[in-house]
Structure formats: structure tokens, C-alpha cells
């Protein structure tokens, strides 16, 4: 399954970067969401997969029975998901506000900070 995940990651990354290079900021956001998912899958797969054995310990037991899924990458992914959520939410609001103020979501049209005639004449 890890191998399949590697292929899936490649697809996700490709798709997300294709979106991110479009110059359309809404597509960029979509790409970002995809990319975060890809990163999470990388971490998850890198910690190796165990089928259907959550890292839970039965009541009364001191340790999990048998081999269970690797809990550490899960914790990392969980952290990463929440962080990505924060970043993405901010980015979304930013794009929304940029559109509100600049009137465009086409990044090529966003030339206020670096005007076309910028620099020394």
C-alpha cells in the first residue's frame, strides 16, 4: 500500500502544483489544499502502515495487543492538518480581501506593490 500511496502522492502533488501555477488565486488555494493532503500522506506512509489496528489500548491493559498502527506519524499528521487548516483559512480570507480591494484574483493583475513601471526610470 505504501507504494501505491507514493504514486498517489505524486498525482496529488502534480495536480496541486498545476493548480498553483495557474495564476488564478482561487485555483491556487485549491492546489494548496491538495498539497497539504499530499504532505500528510507522505508523513503517514513514511511511518509505515499497519492495516486496521488503531493505536488504542484496551481498558485494563497496559499496552496495545499485538502490533498496532504507528501512532507517532498520526500525531504529526494531526498536527499538520490543523496547522494547514489555519494557514489555508488565512490564505482564503486574504484572497477574498485581495479580490475585494484589488478587483481581481488573477495574480498577474495584482501589481500594486510592484508596479509595472516600478524601479528606477
Amino acid at each position, binding site marked *: 500500500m505504501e507504494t501505491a500511496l507514493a504514486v498517489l502522492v505524486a498525482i496529488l502533488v502534480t495536480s496541486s502544483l498545476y493548480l498553483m501555477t495557474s495564476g488564478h488565486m482561487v485555483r491556487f488555494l485549491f492546489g494548496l489544499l491538495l498539497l497539504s493532503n499530499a504532505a500528510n500522506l507522505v508523513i503517514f506512509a513514511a*511511518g509505515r502502515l499497519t492495516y486496521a489496528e488503531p493505536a488504542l489500548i484496551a481498558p485494563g491493559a497496559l499496552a496495545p495487543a499485538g502490533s498496532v498502527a504507528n501512532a507517532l506519524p498520526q500525531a*504529526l499528521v494531526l498536527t499538520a492538518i490543523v496547522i494547514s487548516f489555519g*494557514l489555508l483559512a488565512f490564505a482564503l480570507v*486574504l484572497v477574498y480581501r485581495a479580490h475585494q480591494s484589488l478587483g481581481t484574483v488573477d495574480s498577474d493583475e495584482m*501589481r500594486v*506593490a510592484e508596479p509595472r513601471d516600478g524601479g528606477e526610470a
Partner: protein
Amino acid sequence: MVLLTAPILIALSTAVLTLFAAGDRRLQQSLSVLGSVALLVASLLLAGTVLNDGPIAATMGGWSAPFGITLAADMLSAAMVVITGVIAVATTVYGLADIDPAAERVGYHSLLHGLLAGVCGAFLTADIFNLYVWFEVMLIASFGLLALGGTRAQLDGAVKYVALNLVSTVAFLIAVGLLYGATGTLNMAELRIAVRALDDDTVVLVTAAMFLFTFGVKAALFPVFFWLPASYHTPSVAVSAIFAGLLTKVGVYALIRVFTLIYDTEMPLLQGLLLTVAALTMLTGVLGAAAQNDVRRILSFHIISQIGYMILGLALFTPLALVGAIFYVIHHIIVKANLFFVGGVIRRLTGSEDLARTGGLWARSPWLAVLFLVPALSLAGIPPLSGFWAKFVVVKASLDAEHYVVAAVALLVGLLTIYSMSKIWLEAFWKAHPDPAFEARPMSGVESVALVGPVIALALITVAIGLAAAPFLDVAIVAAEQLVDPEAYTRAVLGALP
């Protein structure tokens, strides 16, 4: 150990407290300044301890390494935290007269101290995933600060800054994941051992390449620095000053840390690449500055150029070169933040940052001129200011290592730096104001203390680092020695039992 958590805790606590004090501007400001001062004091105590006792470490939650997260400070970390404290105090004081009350109400102070927490966390952690987390704290706080104010230019700049930084941040996460998958650990001291033990070159190189990329973006290296000149001139002055001083240096710090501690064995392979990158970073940055006509845009490009020197120090990878890189980092944080502060005063007095629309300051405010000259000349590497020693050590290290071309580039870039800094001097200070009827808006007493006070303080530090370079250099030497032979660091990290 309290000393290691204190900087993070103070910054985050201040962030929370100022949020609770959202209704009372004076209280917010007092808390903010107080928090910065406390951060500075804590950082000085930390640095004193590290200087005396060598690297120290503390386990979080009492879980020993490599199972829990360990914070650790060697001389480099401690020095970086001290500089953070200095810049924090300067920025919060400057912000008293610079920040829009509306921005203060919605969380400027919290975001600022959040940024500081992220920066301190990044400097102090000895865990690679935790480093990612602090990077994100820093990043999101910087996002907020950058866009605070909501002007069109800010939104535009923020879009580019956010977009590019988010790309690199995901690369960081992927790199951490891969490294964990290959080694089974996240503790940076243990990673040193584990990466050495790895048989698979592809894994080592791929992760190294990813770290190089992601930290390279944060550090604004050629050719991935786009986000910096696109945005650094847009926020309020206090914010851009702290960005200019601190943020890229966190990237440089991370590069130094990761490539001396974990990937030091790969450095010979990477040297050619890093030297080229350093040279091109220096050159493109300074040429960018030469093409600009706006105070903060000139200064922003200079940041890039100066980062090149630091990376040159890392690339050479000799003890002296690392000394140079570290000294450069410390010097540049102070000087660059100060230049942005002065740029703010220029704008405040002349009403513009566009050099064509400024002028007359040498006649009107000779003291401001002197206060500009100190960091400007220091940045240009004029002795006996701090920048000279920084440049001296890096160039000497290049020459010692017989890398003559990069040494030549470093010197040439020094000249171009003088050229582009002189532009500000010629236009804003020497040239008469284009409007003959122009009258500078007088500053109130509070304003001049808040705006000029930090400038004076940082200028004094610059002069002090220049005139009394020895103790600062000694710190850099200790730091470099600990990087070249991180045994003390790894022992502190791995041996830090609860």
C-alpha cells in the same frame, strides 16, 4: 530548565494577555513593551548560562530525548534569542508611535509577540518537527502582521508572500516526514547519528535538498527570494523592520543548524552549489537594490544580498567561515532593522518613501543623518562598524579557503552596497526637498522618543559591535566551535534526562 522555555513562554503569554487587554490601548502597549523587555532579560540570562556552562537542554513534559521534545541552546541559539530580544524591545517601542490604533485593537501586539514566540521556538528547539511547528507559528503571525492595515499594496504583497511561503512550508513538512520515515526519529541530535548510519544516499540527498529548498526560501536565497522584495516594503514600518531583521535569519539559522548538525557529511558535495547560490544571492540582491528608488524597496533587496554573505560563510564550512556567518547574522539583524526604522522616520518627516519625493534631511535633521549613516555604513561594511568585521571575516575565510572568485564577488557586492546606500543618502539627505515650500511635520515628544529612541539604541549597538568587536566575535567563535564539533550540543540534547 526554565531558561529555555522562558523566551517562548514570555512571548506567547504576552500575546495572550494583550489579546485580553484588547479594549485598553495603553494597557496593551504597556504589556507589549514589558513583554519584550522580559524577553530580552530572559534571553540574556540564557546566553549568560550557555556562555558559562556550554550547551544546555530541557525536556518538555519530562519525556527524555528522543521520546519527548527537547529544547536546547548552544551559543548560536542563545545569541539568536538575545538578538531577538533586542529587536523585540526596539520594535515594540517604535511601534508605539508607528502602529495604527485600529491595528492594535484587532491584534497587532498579539501577532507581534506570536511572531517572537515562533522565532524563539525555532531557535531553541532540538526537534525537527517542532521546528516545523515554530516555523509555522512565525509564518502565520507574519501573515497577519503583513496584511494588517489592509491597503491595496499590502494585500498584493501579502498574496505573494503567503503564496510562496506556503509552498515552501509544505516542502518542509514533506522533508520532515521523509526524514522520519528513513530514521525513525525527529530529535535533531539523534538525527545526526541516524543520518550517518543511513545506507541510502538518495534518501539523505533528497531530504537534504528539500531542507535546502525550504530554508532557502525562508532565507530568501537566489533564485527563490521573490516573496521578499514583493512584500517587505508594504506593511507598517515596525513590522517591516522586525521582518527585515529577524525572519530571513531564521531561515539562515535553520540552514546552519541542519547542515552543520545533520548533513555536515554532505557539505563537500553541496559546497559548489552553495557557493554559487551565495554569490548569485549577493549579486542579484544588490543589483535589485540598485534598481529601486524607494527606501524600503532598496533595503529589502539588500536583505537578500546580505543573506548571501551568511550563506557564503556556511558554504565555505570552515570554522572561521562559520564565525563569519554567525557574526554576520547578528550584525545584520541589528543594522537592517535599524535602517527600516530610519526609513520610517524619513517617511514620517518627508511624507514619502519614494526617494524622488524626499530630500533636505541633512540640513533639517543632521542627527537623523548621523543615525542613518551608522547603520548604512555598517551595512556597506565600512570600518570600524559591525558590518566591516562581518565582511572581513567572511572574505578572509573565503581567501583562506582559496575561493577567490566568491571573495571577489563579496567585495564587489560591498562596493555595490555602498552605491545603493549612497542613493538614499544623496536623495533623502543631501538633495533639497523637491517641493521648496515643504515643511516637515513636527514630531510630538512621545513620537520622537518612540521613533528615534530605538534608532539611537540600535545605532549604539552597531557602533559597540564595531568598536568592541572582540567579545561579540568571541561569542561567534564559541558558537562556531560548537557547530563544527556539536558533541557538546548532542550530549546536552540526548543526555537531558528529566
